[in-house]
Protein backbone atom coordinates (compact mmCIF):
# COMPACT_ATOMS: atom_id res chain seq x y z
CA UNK A 1 0.00 0.00 0.00
CA UNK A 2 1.25 3.42 -0.96
CA UNK A 3 1.31 5.54 2.23
CA UNK A 4 -0.24 8.98 2.11
CA UNK A 5 1.86 11.89 3.38
CA UNK A 6 2.57 15.56 2.75
CA UNK A 7 5.69 14.58 0.90
CA UNK A 8 3.73 12.12 -1.28
CA UNK A 9 1.27 14.86 -2.14
CA UNK A 10 4.11 17.08 -3.26
CA UNK A 11 5.78 14.31 -5.26
CA UNK A 12 2.55 13.42 -7.07
CA UNK A 13 1.83 17.05 -7.84
CA UNK A 14 4.90 16.97 -10.10
CA UNK A 15 3.14 14.35 -12.26
CA UNK A 16 -0.22 16.15 -12.13
CA UNK A 17 -1.67 13.58 -9.67
CA UNK A 18 -2.05 11.08 -12.49
CA UNK A 19 0.00 8.27 -10.97
CA UNK A 20 -1.68 7.59 -7.63
CA UNK A 21 -2.06 3.91 -6.86
CA UNK A 22 -5.65 2.66 -6.75
CA UNK A 23 -6.93 2.61 -3.17
CA UNK A 24 -7.92 -1.08 -3.45
CA UNK A 25 -7.92 -3.96 -5.94
CA UNK A 26 -10.98 -5.28 -7.72
CA UNK A 27 -10.37 -9.05 -7.43
CA UNK A 28 -12.31 -12.06 -8.69
CA UNK A 29 -13.39 -14.10 -5.68
CA UNK A 30 -11.63 -17.32 -4.69
CA UNK A 31 -13.57 -20.56 -4.23
CA UNK A 32 -13.18 -20.53 -0.47
CA UNK A 33 -12.34 -18.16 2.37
CA UNK A 34 -11.74 -18.46 6.11
CA UNK A 35 -14.30 -15.72 6.71
CA UNK A 36 -16.88 -14.09 4.44
CA UNK A 37 -18.41 -10.80 5.49
CA UNK A 38 -21.70 -9.95 3.82
CA UNK A 39 -22.20 -6.19 3.49
CA UNK A 40 -19.53 -3.64 2.57
CA UNK A 41 -20.70 -0.76 4.71
CA UNK A 42 -18.52 0.85 7.34
CA UNK A 43 -19.19 -1.90 9.88
CA UNK A 44 -18.43 -4.75 7.47
CA UNK A 45 -15.24 -3.10 6.19
CA UNK A 46 -14.07 -2.28 9.73
CA UNK A 47 -14.68 -5.92 10.67
CA UNK A 48 -12.50 -7.10 7.78
CA UNK A 49 -9.78 -4.60 8.67
CA UNK A 50 -9.54 -5.65 12.32
CA UNK A 51 -9.79 -9.36 11.43
CA UNK A 52 -6.65 -8.94 9.36
CA UNK A 53 -4.84 -6.46 11.56
CA UNK A 54 -5.54 -7.78 15.05
CA UNK A 55 -6.22 -11.47 14.46
CA UNK A 56 -4.03 -12.21 11.46
CA UNK A 57 -6.95 -13.63 9.50
CA UNK A 58 -6.43 -12.33 5.98
CA UNK A 59 -8.13 -14.98 3.84
CA UNK A 60 -11.29 -12.88 4.00
CA UNK A 61 -13.84 -11.57 1.49
CA UNK A 62 -16.29 -8.72 1.90
CA UNK A 63 -19.25 -9.20 -0.44
CA UNK A 64 -21.25 -6.07 -1.25
CA UNK A 65 -24.29 -5.94 -3.53
CA UNK A 66 -23.76 -2.31 -4.53
CA UNK A 67 -20.66 -0.22 -4.03
CA UNK A 68 -18.60 0.07 -0.84
CA UNK A 69 -20.21 2.31 1.74
CA UNK A 70 -23.26 3.00 -0.44
CA UNK A 71 -25.76 1.94 2.23
CA UNK A 72 -26.45 3.80 5.45
CA UNK A 73 -22.77 4.54 5.83
CA UNK A 74 -22.98 7.11 3.02
CA UNK A 75 -26.46 8.31 4.01
CA UNK A 76 -26.00 9.20 7.65
CA UNK A 77 -25.52 12.54 9.35
CA UNK A 78 -22.21 11.46 10.94
CA UNK A 79 -22.81 12.31 14.60
CA UNK A 80 -20.33 10.50 16.87
CA UNK A 81 -20.81 10.41 20.65
CA UNK A 82 -20.66 7.86 23.45
CA UNK A 83 -22.91 9.27 26.19
CA UNK A 84 -25.30 6.32 26.46
CA UNK A 85 -27.06 5.53 29.73
CA UNK A 86 -26.55 1.85 30.50
CA UNK A 87 -23.15 0.33 31.24
CA UNK A 88 -23.29 -2.21 28.40
CA UNK A 89 -24.02 0.38 25.73
CA UNK A 90 -21.75 3.05 27.24
CA UNK A 91 -18.78 0.66 27.23
CA UNK A 92 -19.38 -0.36 23.63
CA UNK A 93 -19.75 3.19 22.28
CA UNK A 94 -16.83 4.46 24.38
CA UNK A 95 -14.68 1.65 22.97
CA UNK A 96 -15.57 3.05 19.55
CA UNK A 97 -14.85 6.62 20.67
CA UNK A 98 -11.33 5.66 21.77
CA UNK A 99 -10.69 4.07 18.37
CA UNK A 100 -12.07 7.17 16.59
CA UNK A 101 -9.51 9.29 18.41
CA UNK A 102 -6.63 7.52 16.70
CA UNK A 103 -8.34 6.35 13.54
CA UNK A 104 -6.87 8.71 10.93
CA UNK A 105 -3.34 7.80 12.04
CA UNK A 106 -4.12 4.11 12.32
CA UNK A 107 -5.62 3.97 8.81
CA UNK A 108 -3.22 6.52 7.28
CA UNK A 109 -6.41 8.05 5.91
CA UNK A 110 -7.97 11.32 7.00
CA UNK A 111 -11.45 10.48 8.29
CA UNK A 112 -11.88 14.14 9.30
CA UNK A 113 -12.93 13.23 12.82
CA UNK A 114 -13.79 16.56 14.40
CA UNK A 115 -14.42 16.61 18.17
CA UNK A 116 -16.59 19.70 18.13
CA UNK A 117 -18.89 18.52 20.93
CA UNK A 118 -22.53 17.46 21.00
CA UNK A 119 -25.36 19.14 22.92
CA UNK A 120 -28.48 17.17 23.86
CA UNK A 121 -31.02 19.82 24.82
CA UNK A 122 -33.54 19.63 27.64
CA UNK A 123 -36.84 21.53 27.38
CA UNK A 124 -38.79 20.24 30.38
CA UNK A 125 -38.00 19.50 34.02
CA UNK A 126 -38.18 15.79 33.27
CA UNK A 127 -35.74 16.24 30.36
CA UNK A 128 -33.33 17.90 32.77
CA UNK A 129 -33.67 15.12 35.36
CA UNK A 130 -32.97 12.53 32.67
CA UNK A 131 -29.96 14.53 31.52
CA UNK A 132 -28.58 14.71 35.10
CA UNK A 133 -29.01 10.99 35.47
CA UNK A 134 -27.37 10.19 32.14
CA UNK A 135 -24.41 12.52 32.66
CA UNK A 136 -23.82 11.05 36.14
CA UNK A 137 -23.95 7.54 34.71
CA UNK A 138 -21.52 8.58 31.95
CA UNK A 139 -19.03 10.00 34.43
CA UNK A 140 -19.11 6.84 36.49
CA UNK A 141 -18.21 5.03 33.29
CA UNK A 142 -15.31 7.39 32.59
CA UNK A 143 -17.11 9.17 29.75
CA UNK A 144 -16.83 12.95 29.60
CA UNK A 145 -20.02 14.92 30.14
CA UNK A 146 -21.37 18.07 31.72
CA UNK A 147 -24.80 19.40 32.55
CA UNK A 148 -25.24 22.94 31.24
CA UNK A 149 -27.90 25.49 32.12
CA UNK A 150 -29.53 27.84 29.62
CA UNK A 151 -26.71 30.34 29.85
CA UNK A 152 -24.08 27.67 29.32
CA UNK A 153 -25.90 26.48 26.19
CA UNK A 154 -26.30 30.00 24.85
CA UNK A 155 -22.56 30.60 25.21
CA UNK A 156 -21.77 27.60 23.04
CA UNK A 157 -24.52 28.28 20.45
CA UNK A 158 -25.14 32.03 20.37
CA UNK A 159 -27.42 31.80 17.33
CA UNK A 160 -29.93 29.45 18.90
CA UNK A 161 -33.06 31.00 20.37
CA UNK A 162 -32.74 30.28 24.10
CA UNK A 163 -35.21 32.93 25.26
CA UNK A 164 -37.55 31.97 28.08
CA UNK A 165 -40.78 32.74 26.25
CA UNK A 166 -40.42 30.09 23.55
CA UNK A 167 -42.97 27.35 23.34
CA UNK A 168 -40.18 24.86 24.16
CA UNK A 169 -37.67 26.88 26.19
CA UNK A 170 -34.12 25.54 26.35
CA UNK A 171 -33.63 24.76 30.04
CA UNK A 172 -30.20 23.26 29.59
CA UNK A 173 -28.36 20.41 27.94
CA UNK A 174 -25.92 17.59 28.32
CA UNK A 175 -22.59 18.42 26.71
CA UNK A 176 -20.04 15.86 25.57
CA UNK A 177 -16.95 17.78 24.42
CA UNK A 178 -15.21 14.72 22.91
CA UNK A 179 -18.18 13.97 20.67
CA UNK A 180 -18.44 15.36 17.15
CA UNK A 181 -18.65 14.36 13.50
CA UNK A 182 -16.54 12.52 10.93
CA UNK A 183 -16.49 12.18 7.16
CA UNK A 184 -18.64 9.10 6.45
CA UNK A 185 -17.26 8.16 3.00
CA UNK A 186 -13.70 8.49 4.24
CA UNK A 187 -14.45 6.04 7.03
CA UNK A 188 -15.64 3.40 4.56
CA UNK A 189 -12.79 4.09 2.13
CA UNK A 190 -10.14 4.18 4.84
CA UNK A 191 -11.19 0.80 6.23
CA UNK A 192 -11.53 -0.61 2.69
CA UNK A 193 -8.03 0.50 1.74
CA UNK A 194 -6.63 -0.79 5.03
CA UNK A 195 -8.32 -4.19 4.68
CA UNK A 196 -7.23 -4.52 1.04
CA UNK A 197 -3.63 -3.81 2.00
CA UNK A 198 -3.70 -6.91 4.23
CA UNK A 199 -5.02 -8.99 1.32
CA UNK A 200 -8.76 -8.94 2.03
CA UNK A 201 -10.80 -9.33 -1.18
CA UNK A 202 -13.44 -6.63 -1.61
CA UNK A 203 -16.09 -7.99 -3.99
CA UNK A 204 -18.49 -5.30 -5.19
CA UNK A 205 -21.66 -5.49 -7.31
CA UNK A 206 -22.27 -9.00 -6.04
CA UNK A 207 -25.42 -9.83 -4.06
CA UNK A 208 -25.68 -12.68 -1.59
CA UNK A 209 -28.88 -14.49 -2.53
CA UNK A 210 -28.75 -17.53 -0.26
CA UNK A 211 -26.92 -19.26 2.57
CA UNK A 212 -25.39 -22.69 2.10
CA UNK A 213 -26.17 -24.59 5.28
CA UNK A 214 -25.20 -28.21 5.99
CA UNK A 215 -26.18 -30.02 9.21
CA UNK A 216 -27.11 -26.78 10.93
CA UNK A 217 -23.82 -25.07 10.11
CA UNK A 218 -23.06 -22.51 7.44
CA UNK A 219 -20.46 -23.52 4.85
CA UNK A 220 -20.80 -20.74 2.28
CA UNK A 221 -23.06 -18.28 0.50
CA UNK A 222 -24.84 -18.20 -2.86
CA UNK A 223 -24.26 -15.10 -4.94
CA UNK A 224 -25.87 -13.73 -8.09
CA UNK A 225 -22.59 -13.14 -9.94
CA UNK A 226 -20.03 -15.65 -8.71
CA UNK A 227 -22.15 -18.65 -7.77
CA UNK A 228 -21.31 -20.41 -4.54
CA UNK A 229 -18.45 -19.08 -2.43
CA UNK A 230 -17.47 -21.26 0.51
CA UNK A 231 -16.33 -20.14 3.97
CA UNK A 232 -15.62 -21.51 7.44
CA UNK A 233 -17.43 -18.62 9.07
CA UNK A 234 -19.82 -15.97 7.81
CA UNK A 235 -20.53 -12.58 9.37
CA UNK A 236 -23.61 -10.74 8.16
CA UNK A 237 -23.43 -6.94 8.45
CA UNK A 238 -26.29 -5.80 6.24
CA UNK A 239 -28.13 -3.12 8.29
CA UNK A 240 -31.65 -2.58 6.92
CA UNK A 241 -31.58 -5.79 4.90
CA UNK A 242 -30.67 -8.02 7.88
CA UNK A 243 -34.19 -9.36 8.40
CA UNK A 244 -34.19 -10.60 4.81
CA UNK A 245 -30.75 -12.21 5.31
CA UNK A 246 -31.85 -13.97 8.50
CA UNK A 247 -34.83 -15.40 6.64
CA UNK A 248 -32.41 -16.86 4.06
CA UNK A 249 -30.69 -18.66 6.93
CA UNK A 250 -34.02 -19.89 8.30
CA UNK A 251 -34.55 -17.79 11.42
CA UNK A 252 -36.13 -14.50 12.45
CA UNK A 253 -34.65 -11.38 14.02
CA UNK A 254 -36.57 -8.88 16.16
CA UNK A 255 -35.88 -6.08 13.67
CA UNK A 256 -38.09 -3.71 11.76
CA UNK A 257 -36.71 -1.79 8.78
CA UNK A 258 -37.75 1.85 8.53
CA UNK A 259 -36.83 4.69 6.19
CA UNK A 260 -34.80 7.39 7.91
CA UNK A 261 -34.34 10.67 6.09
CA UNK A 262 -31.83 13.50 6.19
CA UNK A 263 -31.42 16.82 4.42
CA UNK A 264 -28.66 19.26 3.67
CA UNK A 265 -29.07 22.95 2.92
CA UNK A 266 -27.24 25.16 0.47
CA UNK A 267 -23.77 25.99 1.79
CA UNK A 268 -23.69 29.05 4.04
CA UNK A 269 -20.95 30.83 5.97
CA UNK A 270 -19.80 29.26 9.25
CA UNK A 271 -22.53 29.69 11.85
CA UNK A 272 -22.64 26.51 13.91
CA UNK A 273 -19.44 24.91 15.20
CA UNK A 274 -20.98 22.12 17.26
CA UNK A 275 -23.82 19.59 17.02
CA UNK A 276 -27.23 20.44 18.48
CA UNK A 277 -29.76 17.69 19.16
CA UNK A 278 -33.16 17.83 20.80
CA UNK A 279 -35.22 14.77 21.66
CA UNK A 280 -38.14 16.89 22.68
CA UNK A 281 -38.74 19.12 19.67
CA UNK A 282 -37.20 16.22 17.74
CA UNK A 283 -34.52 17.35 15.37
CA UNK A 284 -30.79 17.83 15.13
CA UNK A 285 -28.43 19.99 13.12
CA UNK A 286 -24.73 20.51 12.49
CA UNK A 287 -22.77 22.31 9.82
CA UNK A 288 -20.44 20.46 7.48
CA UNK A 289 -16.99 21.72 6.53
CA UNK A 290 -18.48 22.63 3.15
CA UNK A 291 -20.95 24.93 4.90
CA UNK A 292 -24.22 23.08 4.43
CA UNK A 293 -26.49 22.50 7.40
CA UNK A 294 -26.91 18.77 7.98
CA UNK A 295 -30.37 18.07 9.36
CA UNK A 296 -32.28 15.02 10.51
CA UNK A 297 -34.94 13.81 12.88
CA UNK A 298 -37.23 10.81 13.17
CA UNK A 299 -37.84 7.66 11.20
CA UNK A 300 -40.91 7.28 9.03
CA UNK A 301 -43.50 5.44 11.10
CA UNK A 302 -44.13 2.66 8.60
CA UNK A 303 -41.69 -0.05 7.66
CA UNK A 304 -40.16 0.08 4.20
CA UNK A 305 -37.24 -0.80 2.00
CA UNK A 306 -37.65 2.01 -0.55
CA UNK A 307 -34.66 4.18 0.54
CA UNK A 308 -36.91 7.23 0.53
CA UNK A 309 -39.39 8.59 3.01
CA UNK A 310 -42.49 10.71 3.07
CA UNK A 311 -42.95 14.46 3.07
CA UNK A 312 -44.75 14.93 6.40
CA UNK A 313 -41.57 13.66 8.12
CA UNK A 314 -39.47 16.28 6.35
CA UNK A 315 -41.93 18.98 7.35
CA UNK A 316 -41.81 17.94 11.02
CA UNK A 317 -38.03 17.86 10.93
CA UNK A 318 -37.79 21.39 9.61
CA UNK A 319 -40.39 22.66 12.06
CA UNK A 320 -38.15 21.47 14.88
CA UNK A 321 -35.05 23.11 13.41
CA UNK A 322 -36.83 26.43 12.87
CA UNK A 323 -38.23 26.27 16.41
CA UNK A 324 -34.64 26.10 17.72
CA UNK A 325 -33.08 28.36 15.09
CA UNK A 326 -35.58 30.91 13.72
CA UNK A 327 -32.54 32.41 11.96
CA UNK A 328 -32.47 29.36 9.62
CA UNK A 329 -36.05 29.78 8.47
CA UNK A 330 -35.10 31.08 5.03
CA UNK A 331 -32.17 28.80 4.32
CA UNK A 332 -32.98 26.68 1.27
CA UNK A 333 -32.62 22.91 1.32
CA UNK A 334 -30.41 21.41 -1.33
CA UNK A 335 -30.82 17.65 -1.14
CA UNK A 336 -32.90 15.11 0.76
CA UNK A 337 -32.55 11.32 0.91
CA UNK A 338 -33.40 8.23 2.92
CA UNK A 339 -31.65 5.14 4.21
CA UNK A 340 -33.15 1.94 5.55
CA UNK A 341 -32.42 1.47 9.24
CA UNK A 342 -32.92 -1.78 11.14
CA UNK A 343 -34.50 -0.79 14.44
CA UNK A 344 -34.41 -3.08 17.47
CA UNK A 345 -37.06 -3.11 20.25
CA UNK A 346 -34.57 -1.82 22.86
CA UNK A 347 -32.72 0.62 20.55
CA UNK A 348 -29.50 -1.40 20.94
CA UNK A 349 -27.65 -3.45 18.32
CA UNK A 350 -27.42 -7.21 17.89
CA UNK A 351 -23.88 -8.62 17.79
CA UNK A 352 -24.47 -12.29 18.10
CA UNK A 353 -24.13 -15.93 17.26
CA UNK A 354 -27.29 -17.35 15.69
CA UNK A 355 -29.22 -20.62 15.56
CA UNK A 356 -26.96 -21.54 12.60
CA UNK A 357 -23.47 -22.63 13.61
CA UNK A 358 -20.59 -20.43 12.39
CA UNK A 359 -23.01 -17.75 11.22
CA UNK A 360 -22.85 -14.45 13.09
CA UNK A 361 -24.88 -11.27 12.74
CA UNK A 362 -23.95 -7.66 13.47
CA UNK A 363 -27.06 -5.55 12.91
CA UNK A 364 -29.86 -3.65 14.61
CA UNK A 365 -27.78 -0.46 14.84
CA UNK A 366 -30.86 1.29 13.59
CA UNK A 367 -30.67 5.03 13.51
CA UNK A 368 -27.37 5.43 15.34
CA UNK A 369 -24.63 3.05 14.30
CA UNK A 370 -22.23 5.30 12.44
CA UNK A 371 -20.68 6.47 15.73
CA UNK A 372 -19.93 2.84 16.57
CA UNK A 373 -18.27 1.90 13.25
CA UNK A 374 -14.69 1.23 14.49
CA UNK A 375 -15.84 -0.30 17.78
CA UNK A 376 -18.45 -2.49 16.13
CA UNK A 377 -15.95 -3.77 13.58
CA UNK A 378 -13.37 -4.31 16.31
CA UNK A 379 -15.56 -6.45 18.59
CA UNK A 380 -17.21 -8.28 15.69
CA UNK A 381 -13.79 -9.19 14.28
CA UNK A 382 -12.85 -10.68 17.66
CA UNK A 383 -16.17 -12.52 17.75
CA UNK A 384 -15.60 -14.00 14.27
CA UNK A 385 -11.97 -14.85 14.99
CA UNK A 386 -12.72 -16.75 18.22
CA UNK A 387 -16.17 -18.06 17.34
CA UNK A 388 -17.60 -16.60 20.53
CA UNK A 389 -18.75 -13.13 21.55
CA UNK A 390 -16.16 -10.51 22.54
CA UNK A 391 -16.81 -9.47 26.19
CA UNK A 392 -18.17 -6.06 25.06
CA UNK A 393 -20.47 -7.78 22.55
CA UNK A 394 -21.81 -10.43 24.92
CA UNK A 395 -24.75 -8.41 26.31
CA UNK A 396 -25.91 -7.75 22.72
CA UNK A 397 -26.83 -11.32 21.88
CA UNK A 398 -30.01 -11.79 19.83
CA UNK A 399 -31.18 -14.22 22.54
CA UNK A 400 -31.73 -11.34 24.97
CA UNK A 401 -35.18 -11.04 23.40
CA UNK A 402 -35.94 -14.51 24.73
CA UNK A 403 -34.46 -14.17 28.22
CA UNK A 404 -35.56 -10.58 28.80
CA UNK A 405 -32.12 -9.01 29.40
CA UNK A 406 -32.92 -5.97 27.27
CA UNK A 407 -30.76 -2.83 27.31
CA UNK A 408 -33.26 -0.02 27.01
CA UNK A 409 -31.47 2.87 25.34
CA UNK A 410 -34.52 4.64 23.92
CA UNK A 411 -33.72 7.67 26.08
CA UNK A 412 -30.10 8.11 25.05
CA UNK A 413 -30.74 6.96 21.48
CA UNK A 414 -33.32 9.72 21.47
CA UNK A 415 -33.85 11.51 18.23
CA UNK A 416 -33.01 9.17 15.39
CA UNK A 417 -29.45 9.70 14.17
Amino acid at each position, binding site marked *: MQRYSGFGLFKHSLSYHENWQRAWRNPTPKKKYDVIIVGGGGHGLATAYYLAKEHGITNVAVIEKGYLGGGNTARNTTIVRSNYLWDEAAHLYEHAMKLWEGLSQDLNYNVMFSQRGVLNLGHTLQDMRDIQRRVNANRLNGIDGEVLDTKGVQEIVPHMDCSANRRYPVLGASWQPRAGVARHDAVAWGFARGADSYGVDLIQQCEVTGMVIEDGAIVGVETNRHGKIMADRVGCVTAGNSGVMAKMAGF*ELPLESHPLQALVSEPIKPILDTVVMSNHVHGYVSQSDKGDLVIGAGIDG*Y*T*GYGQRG*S*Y*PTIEHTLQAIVELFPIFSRVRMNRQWGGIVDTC*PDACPIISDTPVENLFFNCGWGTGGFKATPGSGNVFAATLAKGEAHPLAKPFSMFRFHN*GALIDEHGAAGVAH
Partner: protein
Amino acid sequence: MLHIYCPHCREHREEEEFHVKGQAHIARPLDPDSCTDKEWGEYLFFRKNPRGLHHEIWYHTTGCRKFFNVTRDTVSYEIKEVYKIGEQPQVVAKG
Protein backbone atom coordinates in the same frame (compact mmCIF):
# COMPACT_ATOMS: atom_id res chain seq x y z
CA MET B 1 -47.41 11.43 0.91
CA LEU B 2 -49.65 8.38 1.14
CA HIS B 3 -53.35 8.75 0.45
CA ILE B 4 -55.16 6.34 2.71
CA TYR B 5 -58.77 5.22 2.45
CA CYS B 6 -60.37 4.95 5.88
CA PRO B 7 -62.98 2.18 5.78
CA HIS B 8 -64.86 3.84 8.63
CA CYS B 9 -64.95 7.39 7.25
CA ARG B 10 -65.18 5.96 3.70
CA GLU B 11 -62.93 8.67 2.36
CA HIS B 12 -59.36 9.10 1.22
CA ARG B 13 -57.38 11.25 3.62
CA GLU B 14 -53.74 12.31 3.79
CA GLU B 15 -51.13 10.29 5.62
CA GLU B 16 -50.70 12.97 8.27
CA GLU B 17 -54.11 12.12 9.77
CA PHE B 18 -52.98 8.57 10.50
CA HIS B 19 -50.50 6.64 12.60
CA VAL B 20 -49.23 3.20 11.68
CA LYS B 21 -49.28 0.74 14.59
CA GLY B 22 -47.23 -2.14 13.21
CA GLN B 23 -47.90 -5.70 12.15
CA ALA B 24 -51.56 -6.81 12.06
CA HIS B 25 -53.11 -10.14 13.09
CA ILE B 26 -50.87 -10.80 16.12
CA ALA B 27 -52.68 -13.19 18.43
CA ARG B 28 -51.94 -12.92 22.13
CA PRO B 29 -51.14 -16.37 23.54
CA LEU B 30 -54.26 -17.73 25.22
CA ASP B 31 -52.37 -18.88 28.28
CA PRO B 32 -49.26 -16.67 28.77
CA ASP B 33 -48.19 -18.60 31.88
CA SER B 34 -47.70 -21.77 29.89
CA CYS B 35 -45.49 -20.08 27.24
CA THR B 36 -41.78 -20.81 27.15
CA ASP B 37 -39.48 -17.76 27.34
CA LYS B 38 -38.87 -18.19 23.62
CA GLU B 39 -42.58 -18.19 22.75
CA TRP B 40 -43.28 -15.18 24.96
CA GLY B 41 -40.24 -13.27 23.64
CA GLU B 42 -41.34 -13.96 20.10
CA TYR B 43 -44.85 -12.73 20.83
CA LEU B 44 -43.49 -9.52 22.37
CA PHE B 45 -40.57 -8.62 20.12
CA PHE B 46 -40.41 -10.55 16.88
CA ARG B 47 -42.26 -8.90 14.00
CA LYS B 48 -42.55 -9.82 10.36
CA ASN B 49 -40.35 -7.45 8.42
CA PRO B 50 -41.07 -8.46 4.84
CA ARG B 51 -39.59 -6.94 1.73
CA GLY B 52 -42.85 -6.94 -0.20
CA LEU B 53 -46.46 -7.33 0.95
CA HIS B 54 -47.11 -6.47 4.59
CA HIS B 55 -50.33 -6.44 6.62
CA GLU B 56 -50.38 -3.71 9.22
CA ILE B 57 -52.69 -1.82 11.56
CA TRP B 58 -53.33 1.87 11.00
CA TYR B 59 -55.08 4.30 13.31
CA HIS B 60 -57.10 7.27 12.08
CA THR B 61 -55.62 9.50 14.80
CA THR B 62 -57.03 12.89 13.86
CA GLY B 63 -60.16 11.56 12.16
CA CYS B 64 -62.58 8.96 13.46
CA ARG B 65 -59.98 7.51 15.88
CA LYS B 66 -60.70 3.96 14.77
CA PHE B 67 -58.31 1.19 13.84
CA PHE B 68 -58.25 -0.73 10.54
CA ASN B 69 -55.90 -2.95 8.53
CA VAL B 70 -53.87 -2.13 5.44
CA THR B 71 -52.01 -4.36 2.99
CA ARG B 72 -49.02 -2.36 1.71
CA ASP B 73 -46.01 -3.09 -0.47
CA THR B 74 -42.92 -2.17 1.59
CA VAL B 75 -40.78 -1.52 -1.50
CA SER B 76 -43.11 0.61 -3.66
CA TYR B 77 -45.14 1.73 -0.60
CA GLU B 78 -48.31 1.16 -2.68
CA ILE B 79 -51.42 0.41 -0.65
CA LYS B 80 -53.08 -2.70 -2.09
CA GLU B 81 -56.19 -2.88 0.08
CA VAL B 82 -57.81 -1.63 3.24
CA TYR B 83 -59.99 -3.84 5.46
CA LYS B 84 -61.60 -3.71 8.86
CA ILE B 85 -60.34 -5.24 12.10
CA GLY B 86 -61.55 -8.82 12.32
CA GLU B 87 -61.49 -9.29 8.52
CA GLN B 88 -58.85 -11.21 6.58
CA PRO B 89 -56.72 -9.78 3.73
CA GLN B 90 -57.58 -10.62 0.10
CA VAL B 91 -54.14 -9.70 -1.24
CA VAL B 92 -51.50 -12.02 0.22
CA ALA B 93 -47.88 -12.79 -0.61
CA LYS B 94 -47.24 -15.93 -2.65
CA GLY B 95 -45.44 -18.80 -0.97
